[in-house]
C-alpha cells in the first residue's frame, strides 16, 4: 500500500513536473540533482586544485623564474611574479586539501553515492531527501570558507594537507593565523556534511532495496559505496574531533598539541592518520566499484569472482583501520608498534591482489568493447597496480626510513589517487553521463583525452619515483638549494612540462563534458546495454526514478548468458522472458 501511493505519484507527475525552478535545480531534494550539484562543485574544485598544481610545478621546474601571469598575484603571494616560499607552502597544502576533500571525495561519494545508490537498488530516492539537500549546502559553505583562506592576512594554511601540529597550532611559528583556523573550521563543517551523507547512504542501502535486491545481488559499485560510507561515518568524526582540538589550540589557548605544557604533537598525527588511512580507502573503494561495473559491461562477462570481490572490499575496509601507523614510522613512534603496522599494512596487498586479478579475470575470454569508459577502467587497473606496488616499498619500515617524505611518496599517492581514483572517476563519469544528462559524451574526443592523459600522466608521475629514490624531499620550495638535488633539475623540468601538457589535456575533457551536455547525441535508456536497474529508466531518469518499483530477479552481471537472444540480462528481467525462441541464436 505504501509503495502504490508512491507509484501513482510518479505516474502522474513524471511528465508534468510542476516544481518551481528553485525547488527543482537549486534546493532540490532529488538525489540525482543533488548528485549532479555535488559533481559540478567538485569538478570546479578539481580544476582549481589542478591549477594550484601547475603553479607548484612551475616553481619546481623553473625555480626563481617569474611565473606566467604571476604578476596578477598580490605581492604577498608572488613578488614581481616570483613565488614566495610561504605561498608555495600554502599552495601545496591547498592542492592536497582541495584535491582530497573537495574534489575526489565529493565526486566519489557526493556525486556517485547520490546518483547511483537509489537508481541501482531500485529506490525512488534517498532515505532522507531533505538531509541530503542539507548535506550539499553544508559542503558548499565549507568550500566557501576554505576559499576565503586565500584572501585573509597571513595567507592560507601552510602546514600540509596533514596539518601537523605544532606547526599548524602556532601562528607565531608558521606566520599563518586566520588561514589555518579557516582550514580547521572548513574541515569540521565539511565533516558534518559527509557524516550526514554517509548516514543517508547507509540507511538507504540497508533499508530501501527493491524487492528481490538481496545483498548478493547488489552491484559492486553499491557494495563499494556502502563500505566506503561506513568508513566515512566512522573516520570523519575522528578528523572533526582532532580539528576541533587544533582549532582550540590556535584560538583559546588549549594545550593538546603544545609540547611546552605536556601536550603531545604525536597525538595529532595518530588521530589524523587514524582518520587518514581509512580516508584513502574512501578515495579508492568507490572507484574500484565503478571499474568493476564498467569492466563487466565492457567485457560482456560477469565479474570474475563476484563474491570474493565483495569480501575483498570488506576486508580492505576493515584492515584500513589498523594500519594508520605506517605514515608515522619515522615520527618517533614506538618502534615495536611500527613493526606491527608493517605487517598489517602488507596484508592489505592480499585483498588488493584479489581485486586486481579478478578484474583481469573479468577481461579474460570476454569480448571487450573499448569505449571511453572501458579504456579508463582498464587504465585504472594498470595504474592502481603501480601505485599499490609502490605502497609495498614504504610499508617495509626499513625502506621507508629512506623514502619517507620524498617524492617516492608523492609518486605513490598520485598513482593511487590520480591513476586510481581519478581514472576510476573518468570511467564512471563517461559511463553514467548519458543517464545524468540524457546525452552521450563524444567518443572520439573521449578517446583522445584518455590516450593523452595516459601518456602525460605517466610522464609526470613516473619520474617522481626516480627523484624520490635520489632523496628529493617533499614540500620543498626550491630544490636547487641542495647539491645532491642539483643533478635532478632536468628531471623536474621535464615533469613540469609534462604536467602543463597533462593539465591542457584535461581541457579536452572539460569541453567534451560541457559541449555534450547541449549538443551530445541523444542517449536511449540503455546505451551500453548494461544490466543495472538504472538503465531501465528513461535518460535522464525522472523525479522518483522508476515508473513502478522494479522487482529484481538476477545477479548483477548476467552478460552473455548462454541461450539468450541478447548478450545481457537486466537485473529486473525474468530469465525465461528473454530466452530466445528455440533454434534462434547461434
Amino acid at each position: 500500500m505504501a509503495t502504490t501511493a508512491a507509484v501513482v505519484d510518479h505516474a502522474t507527475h513524471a511528465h508534468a513536473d510542476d516544481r518551481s525552478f528553485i525547488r527543482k535545480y537549486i534546493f532540490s531534494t532529488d538525489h540525482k540533482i543533488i548528485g549532479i550539484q555535488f559533481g559540478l562543485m567538485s569538478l570546479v574544485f578539481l580544476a582549481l586544485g589542478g591549477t594550484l598544481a601547475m603553479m607548484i610545478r612551475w616553481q619546481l621546474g623553473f625555480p626563481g623564474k617569474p611565473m606566467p601571469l604571476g604578476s596578477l598575484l598580490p605581492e604577498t603571494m608572488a613578488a614581481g611574479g616570483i613565488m614566495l616560499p610561504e605561498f608555495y607552502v600554502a599552495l601545496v597544502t591547498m592542492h592536497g586539501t582541495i584535491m582530497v576533500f573537495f574534489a575526489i571525495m565529493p565526486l566519489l561519494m557526493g556525486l556517485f553515492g547520490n546518483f547511483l545508490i537509489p537508481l541501482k537498488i531500485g529506490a525512488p530516492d534517498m532515505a532522507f531527501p531533505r538531509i541530503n539537500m542539507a548535506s550539499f549546502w553544508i559542503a558548499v559553505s565549507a568550500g566557501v570558507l576554505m576559499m576565503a583562506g586565500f584572501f585573509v592576512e597571513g595567507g592560507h594554511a601552510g602546514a600540509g594537507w596533514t596539518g601537523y601540529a605544532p606547526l599548524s597550532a602556532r601562528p607565531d611559528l608558521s606566520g599563518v593565523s586566520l588561514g589555518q583556523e579557516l582550514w580547521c573550521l572548513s574541515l569540521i563543517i565539511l565533516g558534518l556534511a559527509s557524516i550526514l551523507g554517509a548516514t543517508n547512504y547507509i540507511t538507504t542501502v540497508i533499508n530501501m532495496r527493491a524487492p528481490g535486491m538481496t545483498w548478493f545481488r547488489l552491484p559492486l559499485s553499491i557494495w563499494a559505496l556502502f563500505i566506503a560510507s561506513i568508513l566515512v561515518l566512522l573516520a570523519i568524526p575522528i578528523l572533526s574531533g582532532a580539528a576541533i582540538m587544533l582549532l582550540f589550540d590556535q584560538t583559546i589557548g588549549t594545550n593538546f598539541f603544545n609540547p611546552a605544557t605536556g601536550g603531545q604533537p604525536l597525538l595529532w598525527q595518530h588521530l589524523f592518520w587514524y582518520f587518514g588511512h581509512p580516508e584513502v580507502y574512501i578515495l579508492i573503494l568507490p572507484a574500484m566499484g565503478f571499474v568493476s561495473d564498467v569492466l563487466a559491461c565492457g567485457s560482456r562477462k560477469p565479474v570474475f569472482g563476484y563474491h570474493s570481490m565483495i569480501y575483498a572490499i570488506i576486508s580492505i575496509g576493515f584492515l584500513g583501520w589498523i594500519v594508520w601507523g605506517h605514515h608515522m614510522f619515522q615520527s618517533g613512534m614506538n618502534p615495536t608498534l611500527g613493526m606491527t603496522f608493517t605487517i598489517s599494512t602488507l596484508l592489505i596487498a592480499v585483498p588488493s591482489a584479489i581485486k586486481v586479478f579478478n578484474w583481469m579475470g573479468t577481461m579474460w575470454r570476454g569480448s571487450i568493447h573499448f569505449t571511453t569508459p572501458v579504456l579508463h577502467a582498464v587504465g585504472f587497473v594498470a595504474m592502481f597496480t603501480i601505485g599499490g606496488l609502490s605502497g609495498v616499498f614504504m610499508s617495509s619500515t626499513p625502506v621507508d626510513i629512506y623514502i619517507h617524505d620524498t617524492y617516492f611518496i608523492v609518486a605513490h599517492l598520485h598513482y593511487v589517487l590520480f591513476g586510481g581514483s581519478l581514472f576510476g572517476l573518468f570511467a564512471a563519469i563517461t559511463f553514467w553521463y548519458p543517464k545524468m544528462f540524457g546525452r552521450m559524451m563524444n567518443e572520439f574526443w573521449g578517446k583522445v583525452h584518455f590516450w593523452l592523459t595516459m601518456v602525460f600522466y605517466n610522464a609526470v608521475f613516473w619520474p617522481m619515483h626516480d627523484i624520490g629514490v635520489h632523496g628529493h624531499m617533499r614540500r620543498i620550495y626550491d630544490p636547487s638549494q641542495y647539491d645532491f638535488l642539483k643533478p635532478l633539475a632536468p628531471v623536474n623540468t621535464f615533469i613540469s612540462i609534462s604536467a602543463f601538457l597533462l593539465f591542457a589535456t584535461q581541457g579536452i575533457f572539460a569541453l567534451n563534458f560541457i559541449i555534450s551536455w547541449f549538443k551530445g547525441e541523444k542517449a536511449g535508456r540503455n546505451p551500453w546495454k548494461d544490466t543495472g536497474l538504472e538503465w531501465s529508466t528513461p535518460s535522464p531518469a525522472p523525479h522518483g526514478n522508476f515508473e513502478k518499483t522494479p522487482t529484481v530477479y538476477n545477479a548483477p552481471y548476467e552478460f552473455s548468458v548462454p541461450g539468450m537472444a541478447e548478450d545481457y540480462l537486466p537485473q529486473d528481467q525474468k530469465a525465461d522472458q528473454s530466452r530466445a525462441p528455440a533454434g534462434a541464436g547461434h
Partner: protein
Amino acid sequence: MEGSKHKHPPYIAIFVALTILTVGELFVAFLPWGRTTLIVILLFLAVWKALMVALYFMHLRFEKSPVRILAAAPLPLTVIVVIAVMTEFRW
C-alpha cells in the same frame, strides 16, 4: 495499530538502580584505596550504568539484530586507537 496497552520495561526500577549506582560511585571515589583498584571499580560501575541505559532506555534489549549490530560495530575501533596510542608513553 493494535490495542493501546503495552508492557513497558521497568523504567522506574532502572532509574532507581542508576541513582544508586551513581551514589555508589561517589562513595567509592573517595575511598582510601589504591588508584588502580579505584579505576577498575569506577569503570565497572560506569559501564554497568551505560549498559543499562543502552539496553533499556534505548531498547537495545528488545531490538532486532541489525540494530544491535549497528550499535556494536564502532566499539572495537574505539578501543584499538586508545590502546595503541597509550603505548607511546611506556616503551
